């Protein structure tokens, strides 16, 4: 095998390794999404009595602008944090991320926001299509 063929074979092997990792990543993401939607409806998000969906979403928008906009952008299209439009994960997963944060990426908001406020935030995030 001459050096040129060896270079091509090496580049192909590196590309295949990266391609394999990409395929595995897509599979894991699909599995994570499916598991997220299989979770039973979460009853841990109390909605304030008498709050209409519109009020809840408006409160959620205010909370978003105060707590989330500096990382996710005022339009939630992403800045330092990701775009939050058309989130393909369950309410439970969103609430968990808000409450616990993501290690090394996003702080926990469990002390800052009550369950009612997290419910309002989720209601607002669901309007982002």
């Amino acid at each position: 095998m001459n050096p040129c063929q060896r270079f091509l074979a090496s580049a192909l092997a590196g590309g295949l390794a990266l391609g394999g990792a990409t395929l595995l990543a897509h599979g894991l993401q699909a599995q994570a999404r499916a598991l997220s939607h299989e979770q039973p409806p979460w009853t841990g998000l109390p909605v304030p009595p008498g709050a209409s969906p519109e009020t809840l979403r408006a409160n959620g928008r205010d909370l978003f602008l105060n707590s989330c906009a500096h990382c996710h952008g005022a339009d939630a299209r992403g800045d330092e944090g990701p775009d939050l439009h058309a989130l393909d994960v369950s309410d439970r997963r969103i609430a968990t991320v808000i409450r616990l944060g993501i290690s090394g990426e996003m702080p926990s908001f469990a002390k800052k926001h009550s369950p009612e406020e997290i419910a309002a935030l989720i209601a607002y995030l669901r309007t982002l299509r």
Partner: protein
Amino acid sequence: MDPGAWARLHGALIHFPVALPVFAAGCDTAALGCWSRPTAARLQAAGGYALYLAALGSVPAVVSGLVLTRGDMLGHDALRRHHLLVWPAWTLLIALAVWRALRREEPTRAGHAVGVAFGWLLVALMGGAGHWGGLLAQSFP
């Protein structure tokens, strides 16, 4: 398995794929320094085997990392910086190992020097990825 356990497993699995390319680059550099002596061939062989082991060990390390991030190949902030170095490093590691495995004839000194340069580039990429990965690991509960 909880994310903390995956993080610990990934941290444990990644040590050899990070350390072995450093050893390989060191052996290859030393071989370059004593090119005309018989030791050079033995150093090259040691560097080659270290690279093969690193490439083999990197597969479970990459798989555990992908499971840990639920298939997120980039992420944000420190995770993004980690990944921006990991993927070129891993591609280069596999390519260098395959290149080395397919080499049948004795390399020229200049050719070997090019390989050494790529070896140290790999070490730099791995080191940067390890640095950001280490910062992420510290933030895990």
